[in-house]
């Protein structure tokens, strides 16, 4: 690593003193900068949503569009809770408790995975498609691109688990888990907004 990268105050895996950096890691800064572009990406989708909604001739969502608000609501709650478990994993890792961190990540992974599974079920059960009307297009594009982000996060978690289970003196590990947690929180927050505009407008 470069000469100016973070200085690690202490890195002792048995120690319960939290391992912190004197400032956010370079990877963390990079992740936050990148997430700002992700924010704009979803803003573009929301802009499309509100434009088409305001231009809609009939009711919104159009007649014939039915979504299971409750079921998706439950999985929304699960996804939001997975942010909490992810953060717990970060705390554990910061205290050098890697085994525990792995367990929390596995839990997060399961919750995120169940969210994706629900989405797959939903996609195959709704009575409309992307070509039905503008709402259908928006629904599939928005949930689809969000789902892709969730899947990307899950893949990241898999790699993280492998890394946490491996070499003990790995200085790059903590920045990676912190950065993934930023990403995960971001994906969750975006979903709350998506859920509100796509499901709660009935």
């Amino acid at each position, binding site marked *: 690593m470069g000469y100016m990268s973070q200085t690690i105050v202490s890195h002792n895996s048995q120690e319960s003193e939290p391992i912190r950096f004197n400032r956010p890691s370079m990877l963390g800064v990079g992740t936050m900068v990148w997430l700002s572009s992700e924010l704009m990406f979803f803003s*573009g989708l929301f802009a499309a949503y509100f434009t*088409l909604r305001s231009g809609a001739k009939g009711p919104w969502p159009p007649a014939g569009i039915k979504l299971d608000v409750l079921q998706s609501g439950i999985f929304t709650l699960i996804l939001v809770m997975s942010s909490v478990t992810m953060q717990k994993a970060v705390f554990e890792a910061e205290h050098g408790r890697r085994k525990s961190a792995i367990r929390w990540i596995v839990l997060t992974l399961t919750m995120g995975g169940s969210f994706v599974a629900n989405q797959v079920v939903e996609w195959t059960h709704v009575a409309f498609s992307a070509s039905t009307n503008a709402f259908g*297009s928006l629904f599939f594009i928005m949930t689809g691109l969000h789902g892709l982000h969730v899947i990307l996060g899950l893949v990241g978690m898999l790699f993280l688990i492998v890394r946490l289970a491996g070499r003990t003196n790995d200085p790059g590990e903590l920045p990676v888990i912190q950065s993934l947690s930023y990403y995960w929180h971001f994906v969750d927050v975006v979903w709350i907004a998506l859920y509100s505009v796509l499901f709660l407008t009935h």
Partner: protein
Amino acid sequence: MTIAEERSDLSHDEGGHEHDHGGPRGIYLWLTSTDHKVIGKSYMYTSLIFMLIAGAMAMIIRAQLTGPNNHLVSQQTYNELFTIHGSMMLYLFAGPFAFGGFANYILPLQIGAPDMAFPRLNALSYWLFVTGGITMLSGFFTSGGAAAFGWVSYAPLSSYSNSPGAGPDLWIVAIALTGFSGIFTAVNLITTAFYLRAPGLTMFRLPIFTWNMIVTGMLILIAFPILTAAMIMLYADRHFGAHFFTVSGGGSPVMWQNLFWFFGHPEVYILALPYFGIVSEVIPVFSRKPIFGYKGLVFATLAIAGLSTGVWAHHMFTTGTVLLPFFSALSLLIAVPTGVKVFTWIATMWGGDIEFKTPMLFVIGFLFTFVMGGVTGVMLAAPPIDFAVHDTYFVVAHFHQVLAGTAVFGGFAGFFYWYPKLTGRMYRESLGKLQFLMAFVGFSLTFFPQYLIGLRGMPRRVPVYLVSDHVTFLNQLSTVGAFLTGASFVVWLINMWISWKKPVAAGDNPWDGHTLEWATSSPPPHHNFVSLPPIRSARPLWDANHPEHADYKSHGLEVRDHEVKK
């Protein structure tokens, strides 16, 4: 404690100097390197090749327009040519040349960093860019031809039924790829500038070039994702029957224009700001003065960036769907910070000791051409005037003057300025000056007549016009100018060839530079610096080389100046 001491441990674990000689060379180096200097150079050369290709297309366009009813190319081919000419010049030349090339090479050096924050991501950016470029060009080899809907790709002309075939799809993919490339570079540059600055280099001591790259990066993070989103929607419309832009399914074609221009206008400043940065480096060095009004320049840059996100609908005045006074007012206002920049540059030269080397000549070409284009841009910002000349050659002339002013004149100013840094060699001054002269005369001859052509009512994107339009002679002048410009690039190629075959050593700091990139050898070693001068102002190297005129000695200079006057 000197910085050199602080750095010494670095050369141990990174191998420092020696690394250079043991590492890969030639093609293999190009393919695998994660060194910001190698990637920066690759970006520059690749984008310049794209520029030549796109320029060659412009030559065909101009040849077609020498007469009112020429049949050099078919209508379809003509539409493909200007679409790819525009797309390549913007996405594959003007942007990557500065933001991928100069920024990559120079920014880490200017802030005293050993490399970019994420070297492998940097290599990924470059390869995405190359892939995008090849993808775009490959459209010409599909049976239906390349995309032919203009670089703006207006819906519903870009729908599958109106533009069938693989060419348009390749274009969409190409834009998405270069978009990701730009976003990753932006992330990388911003993180580098925030994180890897040498000790003592505070934000308000950053070279203006670096500042401009940071702001450009922010604009990219704001604008490009919107384009990516729009491209995904367009692709979904084309292939999954989605209804984002089709009226029948509840979509809105005008929404495409809004999304596109929300990206498109910031994009033109993404293309301009890096070159403003280059100009802000060249002028002080060749005037032997610090930049005048440093903070004003930084705030002007930020103001331009801020305003440029709120003016997009000035491209849509004639749609009848936008709030004219709002977008007109903001567009007019951009003239103010841009003017601040222009006056700042002139004030920097004021009282200086100006040396007319090739980079400085290109800067003068930039100033003239850009201000001309800017002033006509202000006219376009008035909706009534825009009603009269929208989508005519008046607009074509406007944007070529601003774009060529920045990307070509600003770009070549930077190219010649940093050529010794990149290669350790000197170009031939007389050939450089000849190139400037031909390019300057050529560009002016190409684009001044186009204002008149537009005012007489010739629309853009047409391969034929009427004899009764009285634009034939003006079009011929324009074509002559275009070929003169084309020839100027041949002079450039000759210059490069000679400098390559018969190298003349340039020395590490041939221009008496001010900023850190000149504080190391030319070209720099693998991790850039063996030692750094102390950084106590925005011009550390000037301070080191001219201790009696050092900037840090004149802190609070404004106050002292007044005292002297009394």
